[in-house]
């Protein structure tokens, strides 16, 4: 009996397999991901990801550009969390240059990055819900995300690819109303998160679509190099903000929510809780925002010493890392981006096999990929 169950499906049912080409033009592959599915009925028996449709060769371009010129490319990697990308790169270069960033700049960076994390998670929630069929959540999420984008727009001038940071700090200090506007936003967002949770948390359909879907045990998740909420959903306590604090994160009191079962529902709960924790961090950062300059003394021509550095931050999607090798000139000899979405996407195959086509969509959503970052 046991053997019969563990037999591959296609030998049990003498049916033809169907190859289904999902993407690159498909509403719920979050961009230009192409997934080749091998189906038995609607059950996935094998899949292969075809990526690279958005490959722009950022790592190659970086070898031709000066250190300051590279920063905007980082906005366009994970374009829904541009600020986080910036933070990773500028901190990496600052480490290489051994520049001390002013405290005020560090705090503002934390505020902006955490706002970006909320914005990114809101977008994730909306698209994930729309994948599962709850369309309305997306519009609610965009309503709140809009507020964050307005704050960004007034500070940076851009809404999506917000080029927020410069090597050495911030280009400008924030505008006078910045603090009140962020505080206004912080006032509304916890209630709104509660509102989304009322729509979804105990919704029977939502539960049956997410509970037990795409389960990854902790060991497997670590072995797959997963990071971010996907790893923490399996109960592994690894958050770069806590484990190896960068910027000013050591100053703040927050918690890292952990899941137990490692399924789609746990990852959903974790991201919801992470938004609340981000609110806590921003509040503390605003309360303790120091006065002072926002830009360190950085040479006009940035020429880091010969050496190499690996720096990673906790981006909304996971550990975003930069590996910079400097040969002493004004251009990096090699810049490697460690893209969390790219590496997390590997787990799609592990998670989706045995589930139905509809679950593939839900699992792509729960990994939270952005193809700009996957393809670079």
């Amino acid at each position, binding site marked *: 009996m046991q053997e019969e169950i563990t037999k591959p499906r296609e030998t049990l049912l003498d049916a033809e397999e*169907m190859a*289904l*080409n999902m993407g690159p033009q*498909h*509403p*719920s592959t979050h961009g230009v991901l192409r997934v080749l599915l091998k189906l038995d009925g*609607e059950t996935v028996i094998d899949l292969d990801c075809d990526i690279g449709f958005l490959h722009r060769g950022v790592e190659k371009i970086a070898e031709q550009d000066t250190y300051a010129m590279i920063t905007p490319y980082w906005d366009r990697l994970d374009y829904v969390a541009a600020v986080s990308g910036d933070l990773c790169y500028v901190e990496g270069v600052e480490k290489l240059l051994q520049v001390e960033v002013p405290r005020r700049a560090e705090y503002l960076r934390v505020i902006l990055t955490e706002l970006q994390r909320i914005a990114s998670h809101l977008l994730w929630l909306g698209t994930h*819900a*729309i*994948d*599962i*069929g*709850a*369309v*309305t959540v997306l*519009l*609610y999420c965009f*309503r709140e995300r809009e507020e964050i984008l307005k704050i960004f727009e007034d500070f940076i001038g851009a809404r999506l690819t917000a080029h927020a940071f410069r090597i050495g700090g911030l280009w400008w200090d924030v505008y006078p109303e910045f603090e009140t506007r962020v505080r206004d936003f912080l006032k509304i967002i*916890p*209630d709104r998160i*509660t509102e989304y*949770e*009322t*729509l*979804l*948390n*105990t*919704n029977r*359909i*939502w*539960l*049956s*679509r997410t*509970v*037990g879907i795409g389960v990854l045990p902790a060991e497997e998740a670590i072995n797959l190099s997963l990071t971010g909420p996907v790893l923490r959903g399996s109960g592994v306590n690894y958050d770069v903000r806590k484990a190896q604090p960068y910027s000013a994160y050591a100053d703040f009191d927050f918690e890292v*929510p952990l*899941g*137990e*079962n490692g399924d789609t*529902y*746990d990852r959903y*709960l974790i991201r919801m*809780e992470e938004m*609340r924790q981000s609110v806590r961090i921003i509040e503390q950062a605003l309360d303790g925002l120091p006065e002072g300059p926002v830009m360190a003394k950085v040479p006009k021509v940035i020429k880091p010493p010969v050496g190499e550095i690996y720096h990673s931050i906790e981006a909304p999607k996971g550990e975003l890392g930069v590996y910079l090798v400097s040969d002493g000139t004004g251009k990096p000899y090699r810049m490697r981006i460690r893209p969390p979405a790219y590496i997390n996407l590997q787990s799609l195959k592990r998670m989706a096999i045995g589930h*139905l*086509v*509809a*679950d593939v*969509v839900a699992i792509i959503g729960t990994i939270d990929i952005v193809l700009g970052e996957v393809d670079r």
Partner: protein
Amino acid sequence: MPEILALLIAPDWVRSLTGERPPNVFWAEYIVWPLIQIVIVLFVVLTVVAYLVYFERKISAFIQARLGPMRVGPWGILQPAADGLKLLLKEDIIPIKADKLVFSIAPIISVVSTLVVLAVIPWGAAWATIANVNIGLLFVLAVSSVSVLGLVLAGWSSNSKYSLLGALRSSAQMVSYEVGMGLSIIGALIFARTLSLSGIVEAQRADGLPYFLFQPLGFLIYLISALGETNRAPFDLPEAESELVAGYHTEYSGFRWALFFMAEYTAMLVTSAVAVTVFLGGWYFPGLDWIKSNWGPNIYVLLSVAAFAGKIAVLIYAYMWFRWTWPRYRYDQLMELGWKWLIPAGLANVVLTGVWYVLALPEAQGGVFGFVKQTAGRYVPTGYGKIYFILTGFIITIPLSWALLATINRRSRDFNLHDQRQLQIKLRSERIKRNEPVAE
């Protein structure tokens, strides 16, 4: 306006047109007046369908904190006209590898089969119904299930895998939900003792109460099955845009696509109309008889039509509300709901209703309580009988069926979400410990 005026004097006006006098009224009653009715119903229904799309967009917009169509006409009320024009003028694309003949007739099958049902719907009292067929309900169920043929053919002939998957899903789904739908109606038929739709309304008028009070479980099953039958969310799997792009109509464009859209909304209208007829008292509302005797028969007919439309509107609003609130079921969960929950519940409902009814019969007919008495050739519940049926329906049938279903499905995965709830409770209790707001 001429249609309205015609209505006010019909059918006497039609008789004067044909020059016939009762009882010899063949042309007036069977040819001319039905033709007029058909024209009116088609015109009204198709306009309403176009506006249902508009209302759907508006309602979804209001649910989602936006405005919806605002540009074409005041508040966008001319949007349906603009949409229709656009769809008519759009290029009609037939994929090269599609089966052209089947591809062309599939949307027609779909839309015609839903429109045919309109013929037997009792739109209002007396002369407002086109055809009072004595097996009306069977006719509705039979013809409306033909529309799935259109979807299957569309999916198959498109020669696209997404279309094919959508067609497969829709055929399996419609077949499954048809059964639940049929079973849910039987309970009401025990009370009505007729299959004629007008007869069911008349029965509710005679009993004085709409049947959803006697048949709460049946009504619930019907509503859920009707959602599944019409492919509306949360059962919109055949066209689940996040999985199958657009399901069976992925390859359709222009007016053929519009026909599918029309079929979907007409089907929504039809299933709501049947629900209203069978469970909500049809065109009847308390006080209608008084209006008839005091305000005249024409006002009475028009008001009955208005009541029918109002009840349908409520149901359709509920459909839209569901769609924009809930996530979508997965295919296997949909089947599970249909076969493991709705069909057993429907069977249990039939059996239990039968038992209650038999018990309520007069002692002469083998009953116990005698809550049903025979008046004017049919059984009508007495005052106690009404209370008895309502109480048995709500207090005994629903919990008993629930217990039965819970026993059947106790090992189902979707039923056992308890462990997952625990995690959520844990997170929540941690939040309470930290004095943070807890979700409702």
